[in-house]
């Protein structure tokens, strides 16, 4: 009974594995020899299954011809394997190889003939002599091959495969094939072809979905083994109901541990058979690496270094396409023959990059999981590159904007310094001319005021000044204008001492005072008062400095100011500079009534440090 069970399970496994091999070869359009290998293995296992596996169950004796065909198929297996191993050498006219090949096929043919003859004559399949010829002949051939190919590259692998093939047939003669052998002998005898199928699959068809098949196969083999172990230990006890119960429990237990078996099998396939990298770790590492670097080049370099050992690739190359019109291909990863792949990094904008992986080492194929990982990495990299590009763009734009507004602010200041209103200057000189005639001491005083005003306005001083300094300049200016307009102009500067140390952009107030004179006082026959006041007010949770410059002169309506701003009354310049230095915390408000005067109020952040470091702070804010 045990032997029959071994046969059923063994042949089923063998048929599955060879079937898989056959299917793989068929699908990948590989050479005919590999196809033949799969076919032969399949025929053997199916034949033997029908012959030995079923006879114990359905109690029908095996058909001799069927068995003969099965044994013949198995007999040809080593010859085909030898052929496929020697193929390259044979075609290049290697005489020893050719003769070995001829002998191998001859041996197989001889054995097959013997099987058929026996089957036709007395039905005592298999023919023991045929099996012995195979075993002896192929053992000798392997030794011959060993001697001849030992100095060539890859010989060890060839010999190993052939040895397995020989092993598949060599044990056959040990059995009497009547179902009377112990189970372990049956296992050895009839299922020696299974390792060969595994070896083939391992060597040539690790690619694509092979790993999944392999896992299933290994899991199946383990399961078969366990079931069998239970069964073998069973017969001695199978006398009472308790043992049947035990057996039943054993089955359930096996069913319960099947998931574990599966994961163990997949671990075995991944780590031992396929040397597959740990994809989760790889992805995690790649994610970290990609996130850590912020230049495209360094990301590429790091990814190459990560992928190279993981995929056993000798060559990993990055290519760059500038063509913006190129459509993204439908598949991110394109695999050629399981040995090379090109992954397009699907960035939103050109230039795009592609990753070519080729020259896989040691017969390594790109598995379905490899491709999935490459695809994930490509997407990950694309998003990262996109993010880097956007960040760079934004940074550049900010920098540009910042640079431009800084330049504008500097230009405003330069213009202010250069903008010594000639009108004012000549009028002042006229006034001094008059004073020289009437009151030389007053003339001297006005001259001094003018000198100090010119000095402070014309010198290329710092961007910031204190309110006190600014008011000094303004006072000098207003003094000169007072000499010119006499009683038409009165001046009141009402700013507390404590406010005079506050910092503010240089020459910010000056244009406002000039406007008050130019458009307010000088346009009015009666003249008026220019008043400057300052105080601290809360604004946006901060303290702000408010400075009011007002006059009781001519005044104007909105229209004058909208004209005025575009004409460069200086208000535009003040507003721009306020915006630049104070951002949202600064403001300018103008109220003007025709005939009764104009009031300009500016509010700006009071924190001296903030003002001084406005550049640095503003830049930081935007980053």
């Amino acid at each position: 009974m045990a032997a029959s069970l071994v046969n059923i399970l063994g042949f089923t496994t063998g048929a599955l594995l060879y079937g898989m091999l056959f299917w793989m070869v068929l699908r990948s359009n590989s050479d005919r020899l590999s196809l033949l290998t799969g076919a032969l293995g399949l025929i053997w296992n199916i034949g033997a299954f029908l012959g030995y596996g079923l006879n114990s169950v359905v109690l029908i004796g095996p058909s001799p011809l069927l068995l003969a065909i099965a044994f013949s198929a198995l007999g040809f297996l080593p010859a085909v394997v030898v052929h496929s191993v020697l193929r390259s050498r044979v075609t290049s006219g290697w005489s020893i190889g050719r003769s070995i090949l001829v002998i191998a096929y001859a041996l197989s043919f001889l054995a097959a003939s013997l099987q058929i003859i026996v089957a036709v004559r007395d039905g005592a399949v298999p023919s023991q002599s045929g099996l012995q010829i195979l075993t002896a002949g192929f053992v000798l051939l392997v030794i011959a091959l060993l001697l001849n190919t030992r100095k060539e590259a890859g010989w060890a692998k060839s010999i190993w495969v052939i040895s397995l093939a020989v092993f598949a047939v060599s044990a056959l003669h040990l059995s009497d094939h009547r179902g009377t052998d112990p189970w372990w002998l049956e296992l050895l005898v009839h299922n020696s072809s299974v390792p060969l199928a595994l070896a083939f699959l391992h060597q040539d068809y690790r690619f694509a979905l092979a790993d999944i098949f392999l896992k299933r196969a290994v899991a199946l083999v383990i399961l078969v083994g366990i079931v069998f172990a239970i069964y073998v230990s069973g017969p001695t006890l199978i006398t009472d109901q308790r043992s049947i119960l035990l057996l039943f429990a054993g089955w359930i237990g096996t069913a319960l541990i099947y998931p574990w078996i599966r994961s163990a099998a997949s671990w075995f396939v991944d780590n031992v058979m396929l040397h597959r990298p740990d994809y989760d770790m790889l992805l995690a590492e790649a994610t970290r690496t990609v996130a850590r670097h912020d230049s495209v080049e360094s990301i590429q370099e790091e990814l190459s270094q990560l992928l190279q050992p993981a995929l056993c690739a000798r060559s990993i190359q990055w290519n760059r396409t500038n063509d913006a019109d190129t459509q993204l291909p439908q598949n991110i990863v394109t695999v050629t023959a399981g040995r090379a792949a090109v992954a397009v990094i699907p960035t939103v904008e050109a230039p795009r990059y592609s990753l070519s992986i080729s020259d896989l080492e040691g017969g390594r194929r790109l598995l379905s999981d490899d491709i999935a990982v490459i695809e994930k990495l490509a997407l990950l990299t694309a998003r990262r590159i996109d993010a880097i590009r956007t960040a760079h763009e934004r940074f550049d734009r900010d920098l540009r904007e910042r640079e431009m507004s800084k330049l504008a602010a500097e230009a405003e200041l330069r213009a202010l310094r250069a903008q010594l209103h000639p009108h004012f200057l000549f009028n002042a000189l006229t006034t001094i001319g008059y004073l020289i005639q009437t009151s030389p001491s007053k003339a001297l005083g006005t001259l001094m005021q003018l000198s100090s005003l010119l000095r402070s306005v014309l010198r290329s001083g710092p961007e910031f000044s204190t309110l006190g300094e600014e008011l000094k300049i303004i006072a000098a200016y207003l003094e000169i204008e007072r000499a010119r307009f006499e009683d038409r102009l009165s001046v009141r500067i009402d700013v507390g001492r404590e406010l005079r140390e506050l910092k503010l952009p240089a020459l910010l107030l000056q244009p406002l005072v000039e406007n008050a004179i130019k458009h307010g006082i000088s346009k009015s026959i009666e003249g008026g008062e220019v008043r400057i006041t300052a105080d601290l007010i809360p604004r946006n949770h901060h303290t702000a400095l408010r400075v009011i410059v007002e006059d009781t002169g001519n005044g104007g309506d909105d229209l004058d100011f909208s004209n005025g701003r575009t004409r460069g009354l200086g208000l535009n310049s003040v507003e721009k500079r306020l915006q630049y230095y104070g951002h949202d915390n600064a403001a300018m408000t103008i109220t003007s009534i025709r005939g009764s005067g104009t009031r300009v109020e500016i509010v700006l952040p009071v924190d001296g440090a903030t003002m001084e470091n406005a550049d640095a702070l503003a830049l930081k804010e935007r980053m």
Partner: protein
Amino acid sequence: MTTPKLRVIIADDERPARSFLAATLRTFPDVDLIGEASNGAEAVKLIERERPDIAFLDLQMPELDGIGVVRLLKKNLTPLIAFVTAYDQYAVRAFELNAVDYLLKPVEASRVRETLDRAIERLEQKELRSETVDRVRAAVEEFETASPQKLERIPVRRRDEIVLVPVNEIASVVAEGELLHIRTIQNERHTISYRLRDLEARMNSNKFVRLGRGTIVNVELIRRIIPLPGGTYTVVLPNNQEFKVSRIQSRIIREQLLRL
């Protein structure tokens, strides 16, 4: 024989500047400074009363500036003019193009002398004199049209006074030959001698609209628009003034006013 002295007046709103020029003029024995004005309106009155040979007019004066003074003077009463300015590129260019005398502040005695000498020369020859007045008027017009500054007030003579009509208060302007009839919002009537085209150019185009060859009205006062057969309109102002709109202007009215 003693030549008659030059009769001179000065107009400047800034007393120091005025005094400085006056002091310079007094150094010349052939000059008789017969009056000083501290604003444009005073200057017009002074000129018409005293009939000076030459007037030194400051270009920048509140309300009525030097240009406005010349504008208001009747042609036969216009003396020789020398403009005085501290700095004014537009004006200086207009003066130079028309060979009109001007002085830059602070005025230099030698430049004043040159101006006086030229004036004496022109006064001796009648035709030269009237030609000079024409040139001044031409320069003034040129300057006004070149100046980007919009007109704020229109100086109007009325008997022996000058009325300053704020442009914002004008309801309508109707041309009649060389004269312009101005109606204000308060329904006051004024007449000035000016070209409608020039006035329109100096008025705010957002506030005033041309209705035809000879009319400009304040857009803000238009309340009723009556369509006429043939696609034209009649515009009615609150003071019941009615204006026919020309065919071309009707289209503009339609596009600017009759659309939501």
